[in-house]
């Protein structure tokens, strides 16, 4: 018995694994049937088959697992009795059924890898032959068949073929490393190409279609290959490339994706012997093509040619692996082998499908002419997940049409190909005649139902007549104020009956209403007034003025349907709000339709609870008023605009509510039954089926939910769908179909209609389309376009993507802005949100890409109107006047701060008192060469002291600053010591890692080294030139002053902080001698004193003095008020890593205390960094750019269960491609929402200040830990701090320590020494300490 075990080839292994994943599915059955038009002789056939078994030993391969690895060996030859089935009495259907069933029969790889049956009928025989792909391919079947024929007709006996074992050995010996690398590179992930949407979860099931291209098309293709540029080295190669070109073209047209990839097998029968060897000889490799704009068949074909050359260059047996195989899901297999004739006996071969496909493959296209018909045949396997019957038919139609076009007009641009003549009935649309306006409809109600209640607000009820009267007064008032028709009137009112009256009043005078909610920030309101050139603004005060007397001279104004009815301002994703102007006709078309559709013209009782600045609100405002119903008003509570949704939804008197999905999420757990509520209209955001179903089930059967889609630019709502529980089961609820007189087309990037069932951008046309954007002609031209397919119409380009499903309904797929790119990959934020929500059971997740580069862009920033602090500073807030919270807070303690500052006389006394007898110098001055330290030095000299000037050269000091220092010291006759350290580069790198800047490290080095010198030379005082702004930046926190601590106390605290500062383990402590700081002695021997605590000279005075007395020159080679060149590097890194400039904060202080102007500060913050120089310096100091600079990434915010980052990442690996796994996870109690009921992205926490936890998160376990955690979180600006997280690792520094300690004192009345925080650097430890202290205090 030959039990020669072999390993598997790499292709075999892939199949082995694939089968193991789906052990019960016949995915790899390769089945051919040969239908002979004559009955074959069973015995002869049997013998022939046995000879086949003998001489094609690979058929006898079996597979077993040995020590968890698969091996193969040949089972011995045993002649077998071939299975025969009598089908003489069977119908065609029965035969088909039997074959189909048998093709799906599972093959047991450890027993026998084939299944062969002869079906005998009358005048026909069918040879059914199923061989597992692991030992075969299509080529092998031609070998089997041709051999069998030879044996059947006794044409030969033996077969000298090479055995597959030889190939196994051959593949093993091939050195494929270089080629593998090439292919792995080529397989880098692309956006998944989805031809048609995911239909169901029918994993792995597949439908095979057989297509005969026919003589005509086959001939045309052949003719094309005779043309110079379509001709390759062989005819087969030429055809292969043509088909590949056609397929790329079709995939592009359907998916609209430009970066495409197709997989194709190259058979590895590289040695001539292998050509006669049966077995699996297919390696699959990717072919990548990017479709350019203006791509034609010709240009595409050229690209394909080049790719094919590369393909053959690098394709090697075994140079493929699982990763490469899974990088594509569309496959083209061109087979150029065929079956021999059967000596005159007619037969038909059929390559049967087995009903299944690798679940990751979408479609496999096999091109062949196995039967030697002279025509091409396509055998296409469609994955049922992606293809319904309609989709399959469409695809085939497109492919054939493309082949026709290719042969007919090779120069044709891909985008011009019209391959579906029956695109859409949409192209022949029309609008019904339309007339009417909302005012008329309201007045009609006033006529017929004057006593009905029109509006209700907290006890006030207004009848239609009342409302009309009040509105008339408003109109009269407008006229009295000389407001002419068509002019715009701002309505800056709270939600109230006044508001309604004012709106109608405005319409009575044929003015255009511009509603602005009272919660709108002043600046925005001002902007709106200006932008609309409003003739007048009506606010609460004006409403009080309005009364009856205005009525006397009132003249009613005519409305033309084209006149503007309202302007609504949208926020837009960037920059200024845009004013969208709509006509009466646009709105009337919507509201009349809504009146007919929702409650069939019966009176509507709806709540008015959403922002008046949101067009969604207009429905709730006007539907009641034109139907004779009542508008129930829920006024704003406060500036947040959020109201009690529960009371809205549970109001039993309402029959219609319009809300956003976010509203519904918030309120869904509080809903009571409400038998009067008939209609819920949902708009504004994506609406999930789960949520819809949940709501539907809460109410009774006579309740309907409608998903209403509509941008402000198309009058409130224009595509609507009624939620159907049975149909709309997964994903999002469809948005449905356009309303009356509105139409929607899906166009691609070239503004052409996309193919049915494929993705495109929504363009809207019809009565509802707005006039345009106020004062923004460019944007209006861009978004409101004309289109040749719709002559005379204006189309609005929405920026929303959708597709039309089988039922003809639109399905919303997201905004263009949501399709973001990161590092070249397209990121589907929606997918990430879904995946995270799944894992954490979060009700709302928001995924975003943050990019510090964009964040740092000057044009995206807002600056404090007072100090210039930019808006990218973490968690900074501004009040209505644009003043930042730091400035506002400073106002509160500024007075106390004055006590901290002293006079020069006091400085003199201080230094005098510390004079040492045996010391050469009275004090040391840290002299950088800049204006601050130079001025200080001069003043010290003036005071008569013996000063040693200490300058530190960090290797990048400005030459001019150094020259300055030397000159000044020379002129002043002061000794100058220039110090340095060899460890500076390490210190820089460490500082960049810890603090994202270079200054921290540098300062620490200076302090350390200067202290050494001072000790050596017995100098008792070191004077620093830190500016006042720098004091506030590093030491003088507001907590120190708020708690009414005495100045002595403050000094003590600051000294403590300094001590701890020197005791922190970092690069400085590693490379420099910090042993001197271990005991407190050094702090007694050497005192640090800040000159500017004692000196109050203004900037002007300082410059004057420096100019006149010293001829001091301002360094120009550093470009800003700093003395050193490496500063730029620090700023660059900080901006990238942290998302804001490290100078923002200190400069704001300089401005706040008058040492810098706001404009100067802003200019310097935005100063351009010379990146080349920065990179050079990074090289010099040994800072590795790539690893530590994470300036952009994906952040996901979620509610629900908190999960450890690491765990989340791990779990997500199986749900998302690697490039979509978020970098930051931020768990929130709730997601902030705007007053329009949408997610408020601006209020989401800064992803930069989120620290990624390495240790397991442990939530606070008791009240004390909770309290401490809150304080730490607030001061360290970190969302969630676990009780075992280390203070220093979290970015804690002296200032933070001071603040935390002060807050603890404030909250608990306990004075905890600063150093305790450093000695108990976790919340757990710190809390234990405090608990102990409290305990001992009680005893």
């Amino acid at each position, binding site marked *: 018995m030959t039990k020669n075990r072999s390993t598997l080839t790499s292709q075999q292994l892939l199949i082995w694994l694939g089968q193991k994943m789906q052990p019960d599915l016949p995915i790899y059955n390769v089945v051919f049937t040969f239908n002979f038009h004559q009955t074959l002789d069973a015995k002869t056939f049997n013998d022939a088959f046995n000879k086949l078994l003998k001489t094609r030993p690979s058929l006898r391969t079996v597979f077993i697992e040995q020590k968890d690895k698969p091996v193969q060996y040949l089972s011995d030859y045993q002649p077998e009795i071939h299975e025969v089935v009598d089908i003489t009495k069977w119908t065609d259907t029965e035969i088909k059924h039997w074959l189909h069933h048998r093709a799906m029969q599972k093959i047991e790889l450890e027993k026998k890898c084939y299944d062969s049956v002869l079906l005998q009928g009358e005048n026909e025989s069918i040879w059914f032959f199923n061989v597992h792909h692991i030992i075969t391919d299509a080529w092998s079947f031609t070998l089997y068949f041709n051999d069998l024929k030879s044996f059947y007709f006794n044409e030969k006996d033996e077969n000298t073929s090479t055995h597959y074992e030889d190939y196994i050995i051959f593949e093993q010996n091939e050195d494929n490393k270089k080629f593998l690398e090439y292919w792995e590179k080529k397989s880098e992930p692309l956006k998944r190409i989805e031809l048609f949407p995911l239909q169901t979860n029918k994993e792995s099931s597949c439908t095979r279609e057989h297509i005969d291209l026919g003589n005509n098309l086959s001939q045309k293709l052949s003719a094309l290959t005779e043309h*110079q*540029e379509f*001709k*390759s*080295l*062989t005819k*087969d*190669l030429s055809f292969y490339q043509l088909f590949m070109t056609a397929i790329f073209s079709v995939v592009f047209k359907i998916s609209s994706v430009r970066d495409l990839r197709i997989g194709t097998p*190259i*058979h590895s*029968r*590289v*040695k*001539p*012997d292998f*050509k006669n060897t049966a077995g699996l000889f297919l390696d699959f490799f990717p072919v990548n093509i990017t479709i350019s704009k203006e791509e034609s068949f010709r240009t595409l074909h*050229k690209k394909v*040619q*080049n790719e*094919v*050359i590369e393909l*053959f*260059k690098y394709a090697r047996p075994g140079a493929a692996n699982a990763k490469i195989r899974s990088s594509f899901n569309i496959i083209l297999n061109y087979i*150029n082998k065929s079956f021999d004739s059967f000596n005159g006996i007619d037969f038909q071969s059929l390559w049967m499908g087995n009903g299944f496909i690798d679940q990751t493959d979408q479609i496999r296209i096999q091109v062949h002419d196995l039967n030697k018909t002279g025509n091409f045949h396509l055998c296409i396997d469609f994955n049922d997940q992606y293809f319904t019957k309609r989709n399959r038919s469409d695809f085939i139609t497109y492919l054939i049409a493309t082949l026709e076009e290719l042969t007919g007009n090779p120069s044709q641009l891909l985008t011009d190909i019209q391959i579906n003549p029956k695109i859409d009935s949409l192209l022949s649309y029309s609008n019904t005649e339309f007339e009417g306006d909302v005012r008329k409809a309201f007045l009609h109600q006033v006529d017929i139902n004057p006593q009905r209640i029109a509006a209700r607000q907290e006890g006030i009820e207004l009848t239609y007549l009342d409302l009309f009267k009040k509105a008339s007064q408003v109109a009269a008032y407008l006229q009295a104020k000389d407001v002419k028709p068509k002019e715009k009137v701002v309505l800056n009112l709270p939600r109230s009956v006044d508001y309604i009256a004012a709106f109608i009043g405005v319409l009575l005078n044929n003015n255009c209403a511009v509603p602005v909610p009272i919660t709108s920030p002043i600046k925005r309101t001002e902007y709106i007034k200006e932008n609309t050139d409003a003739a007048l603004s009506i606010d609460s005060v004006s409403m009080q003025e309005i009364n009856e007397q205005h009525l006397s001279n009132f003249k009613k104004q005519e409305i033309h349907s084209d006149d503007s009815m309202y302007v609504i301002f949208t926020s837009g994703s960037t920059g200024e709000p845009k004013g969208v102007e709509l006509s009466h006709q646009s709105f009337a078309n919507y509201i009349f339709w809504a009146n007919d559709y929702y409650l069939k013209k019966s009176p509507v009782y709806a709540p008015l609870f959403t922002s008046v600045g949101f067009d969604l609100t207009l429905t709730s405002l006007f539907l009641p008023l034109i139907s004779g119903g009542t508008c129930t008003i829920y006024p704003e509570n406060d500036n947040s605009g959020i109201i009690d949704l529960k009371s809205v939804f549970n109001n039993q008197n309402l029959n219609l509510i319009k809300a956003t999905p976010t509203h519904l999420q918030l309120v869904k757990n509080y809903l009571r039954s409400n038998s009067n509520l008939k209609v819920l209209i949902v708009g504004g955001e994506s609406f999930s089926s789960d949520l819809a179903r949940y709501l539907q089930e809460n109410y009774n059967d006579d309740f309907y939910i409608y998903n209403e889609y509509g941008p402000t630019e198309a009058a409130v709502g224009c595509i609507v769908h009624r939620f159907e529980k049975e149909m709309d089961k997964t994903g999002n609820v469809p948005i449905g179909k356009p309303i009356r007189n509105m139409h929607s087309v899906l166009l691609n990037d070239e503004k052409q209609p996309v193919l049915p069932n494929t993705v495109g951008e929504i363009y809207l046309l019809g009565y509802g389309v707005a006039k345009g954007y106020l004062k923004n002609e460019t944007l209006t031209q861009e978004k409101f376009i004309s289109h040749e397919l719709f002559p005379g119409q204006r189309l609005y380009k929405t920026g929303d993507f959708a597709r039309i499903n089988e039922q003809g309904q639109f399905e919303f797929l997201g905004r263009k802005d949501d399709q973001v790119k990161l590092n070249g990959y397209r990121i589907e934020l929606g997918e990430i949100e879904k995946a995270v929500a799944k894992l954490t059971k979060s009700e709302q997740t928001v995924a975003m890409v943050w990019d510090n580069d964009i964040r740092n862009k000057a044009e995206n920033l807002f600056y404090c109107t007072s100090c210039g602090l930019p808006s990218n500073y973490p968690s900074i807030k501004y009040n209505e006047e644009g003043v930042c919270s730091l400035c506002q807070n400073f106002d509160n303690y500024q007075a106390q701060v004055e006590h901290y500052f002293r006079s020069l006389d006091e400085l003199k006394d201080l230094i005098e008192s510390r004079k040492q007898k045996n010391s050469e110098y009275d004090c040391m001055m840290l002299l950088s060469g800049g204006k601050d330290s130079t001025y200080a030095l001069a003043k010290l000299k003036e005071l008569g002291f013996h000063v040693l000037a200490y300058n530190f050269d960090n290797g990048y000091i400005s030459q001019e600053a150094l020259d300055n220092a030397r000159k000044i010291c020379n002129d002043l006759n002061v000794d100058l010591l220039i110090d340095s350290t060899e460890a500076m580069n390490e210190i820089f790198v460490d500082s960049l890692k810890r603090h994202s800047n270079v200054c921290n490290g540098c300062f620490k080095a200076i302090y350390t080294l200067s202290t050494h010198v001072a000790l050596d030379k017995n100098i008792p005082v070191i004077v620093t030139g830190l500016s006042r702004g720098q004091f506030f930046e590093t030491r003088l926190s507001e907590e120190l002053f708020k708690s009414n601590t005495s100045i002595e106390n403050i000094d003590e605290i600051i000294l403590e902080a300094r001590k701890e500062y020197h005791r922190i383990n970092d690069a400085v402590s590693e490379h420099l001698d910090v042993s001197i700081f271990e005991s407190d002695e050094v702090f007694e021997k050497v005192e640090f004193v800040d000159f500017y605590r004692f000196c109050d000279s203004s900037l002007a005075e300082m410059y004057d003095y420096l100019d006149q007395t010293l001829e001091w020159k301002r360094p120009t080679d550093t470009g800003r008020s700093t003395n050193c060149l490496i500063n730029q590097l620090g700023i660059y890194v900080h901006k990238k890593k942290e998302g804001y400039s490290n100078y923002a904060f200190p400069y704001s202080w300089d401005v706040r205390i008058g040492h810098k102007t706001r404009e100067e500060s802003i200019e310097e913050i935005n100063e351009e960094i010379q990146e080349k120089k920065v990179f050079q310096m990074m090289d010099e100091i040994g800072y590795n750019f790539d690893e530590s600079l994470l300036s952009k990434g994906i952040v996901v915010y979620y509610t629900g269960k908190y999960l450890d980052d690491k765990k989340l990442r791990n779990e997500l690996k199986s749900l998302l491609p690697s490039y979509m796994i978020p970098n930051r996870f931020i768990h929130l109690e709730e997601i902030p929402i705007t007053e329009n009921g949408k997610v408020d992205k601006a209020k989401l926490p800064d992803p930069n200040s989120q620290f990624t936890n390495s240790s397991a998160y442990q939530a606070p376990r008791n009240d004390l830990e909770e309290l401490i955690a809150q304080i730490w979180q607030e001061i360290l600006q970190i969302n969630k701090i676990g009780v075992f997280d280390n203070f220093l690792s979290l970015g804690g520094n002296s200032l933070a320590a001071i603040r935390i300690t002060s807050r603890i004192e404030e909250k608990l009345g306990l004075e905890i020494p600063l150093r305790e925080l450093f000695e108990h650097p976790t919340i757990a430890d710190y809390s234990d300490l405090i608990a102990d202290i409290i305990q001992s205090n009680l005893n």
Partner: protein
Amino acid sequence: MIQKIKKYIQSELAGDPTLSISNDDDLLGSGIIDSIGIMKLVAFIEEEADVKIPPGEMVIENFINLNAIEQYLKTKQD
């Protein structure tokens, strides 16, 4: 160069180092090499002769036999 190419065809593509190939033998037509083989041959020639063969020049006329290949390579050098 032609010798190198011949050797490559014999050992790598035809699998028979002793196979005799005359300089005017039709490589494809006589079945010495097939579609895949010819592509590999072209790649080999590019590498060995250090030339770039654009798709436009990948026509059967240039590679039909060893003579043609030699001619073609000569024109590349000019």
